């Protein structure tokens, strides 16, 4: 009895382990089923993309797959985190950053090819939906309890610092007041949005596309044109891409009229747009 129970347990554990192993091996198994040898261009394209690109790139991925039959796998995180992962040897085909700096740094390190500016974004101010604190301007932030921005290494955090500096040049002293209201520096722009959406933070500084993607939870407070920062999104093929043909194809699709239309439908601006 004791032994059968032990065996049963063992069998169960083995079945669990086996199913996990099979799950891990599933893509390979499918490639073999689809016909041997698996054609190289059927390999999925692996794209490391900035958090702010989540909706835009997910949609692009679906269209690309519908068009070519090639899967696109995304790893969304803060651009600085993705860059660290790539520097530490993570395998991917493309890197899409929310700023030029991280992509350019990877190029300098010999890990990425020349980055292409594929879209622009605008920095904006968000508050919990309905704007309970009646925030109308950047100066209003100085009276709030909790302002949340990205960490210094996060593109959205660096842009927020630029915005503070720009505001300070127009209203001297504002920068220090705003910095004093910063309660947290989040690891990516979507965590900033989440803190505001939850009502933990009174306001956050994010991209306009983030505000639109979460419009059911947060409200956007438009900034005056002179304070509207433009942020460039950059994409680069990686030097050690396991699927360089797939990388080139997806990059071309992002820059194509169809890809651009898809991004602009989600609030992104064309590269170089005013």
């Amino acid at each position, binding site marked *: 009895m004791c032994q059968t129970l032990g065996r049963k347990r063992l069998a169960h554990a083995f079945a669990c382990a086996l199913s996990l192993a099979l799950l891990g091996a599933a893509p390979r198994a499918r490639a073999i089923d689809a016909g041997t040898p698996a054609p190289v261009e059927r390999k999925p394209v692996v794209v490391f993309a900035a958090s702010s690109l989540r909706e835009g790139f997910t949609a692009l991925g679906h269209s690309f797959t519908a068009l070519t039959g090639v899967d696109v796998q995304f790893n969304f995180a803060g651009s*600085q985190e993705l860059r660290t992962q790539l520097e*530490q040897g993570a395998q991917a085909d493309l890197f899409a950053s929310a700023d030029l700096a991280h992509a350019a740094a990877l190029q300098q390190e010999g890990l990425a090819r020349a980055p292409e500016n594929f879209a622009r974004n605008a920095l904006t101010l968000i508050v919990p939906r309905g704007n309970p604190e009646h925030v109308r301007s950047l100066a209003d932030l100085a009276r709030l309890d909790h302002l*949340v921005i990205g960490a210094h*290494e996060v593109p959205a955090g660096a842009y927020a610092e630029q915005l503070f500096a720009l505001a300070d040049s127009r209203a001297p002293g504002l920068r220090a007041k705003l910095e004093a209201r910063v*309660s947290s520096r989040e*690891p990516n722009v979507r965590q900033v949005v989440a*803190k505001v959406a939850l009502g933990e*933070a009174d306001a956050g500084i994010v991209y306009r596309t983030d505000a639109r993607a979460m419009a059911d939870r947060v409200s956007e407070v438009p900034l005056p044109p002179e304070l509207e920062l433009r942020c460039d999104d950059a994409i680069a093929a990686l030097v050690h891409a396991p699927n360089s043909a797939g990388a080139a194809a997806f990059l071309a699709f992002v820059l194509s009229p169809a890809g651009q239309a898809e991004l602009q439908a989600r609030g992104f601006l064309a590269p170089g747009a005013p």
Partner: protein
Amino acid sequence: MSRLGAALVRAAALLLVLLLALPLAALLVHGGPAALAGGLASPLVRAALAVSLGTSLVSLALVLLLGTPLAWLLAKRRAGAPGAVETLVQLPIVLPPSLAGLALLLAFGRRGLFGALLSHAGISLAFTPAAVVLAQLFVASPFYVQVAESAFRAVDPRLMDLSRTLGCSPARAFFRVALPLSSRALLGGAALAWARALGEFGATLLFAGNLPGATQTLPLAIYAALESDVNAAAALGVLLLAIALGLLWLARRSAAQLFARGRREESEAMR
């Protein structure tokens, strides 16, 4: 067992030992003495160390203060199937910390279930070291309560009865008999809980945010440093590793004593 079988067993064991040892060795290689010295000189690291020590010591005090009575009450009930409270106390051990952070936000966040109640009382936890403490308390206290409960269970009830017949009040009996007898185990449980509080990451990031000097603890600083300087992150890692080793040594020493006592009592009972 055949020679092949014995070799397989050894190979499997060695593989796991290597898997556990190699990452820590790599940490030591990256975060060598020079990196460690450089890291300790950086104001960000010092701020993170201060936040970590401050919050985790407050958490530890709260764990001891609130966990000891709970463990005592749990130990006094008759042994049997674990009840609802036991399950509740054990649950944070197996929960992912990000889930703990989310649950804390939904409960004590400004718009959480009890957020309005707290703000009426003039308490705002959002983005404060108090939120860090709460996150640490949530994930760390179960480790202490578990150990303390089994230690209190191991106290011979006849000793407690005897002290009562000698005129001790229940409180005096607890402080003069149960507590001294369990002190080593309690120390070990406290070391485990402290280590867990020091290492807390996910719940802190979600619930308390990340601001250097206020809520950025050592694990959060490692995460942040990784994105600018891997060696600095490794230096921070070595620092945490050293603290963790010290706490593990403390926990083990007391566990060894507890087991030794258990065995001694067992052999006496056999006689």
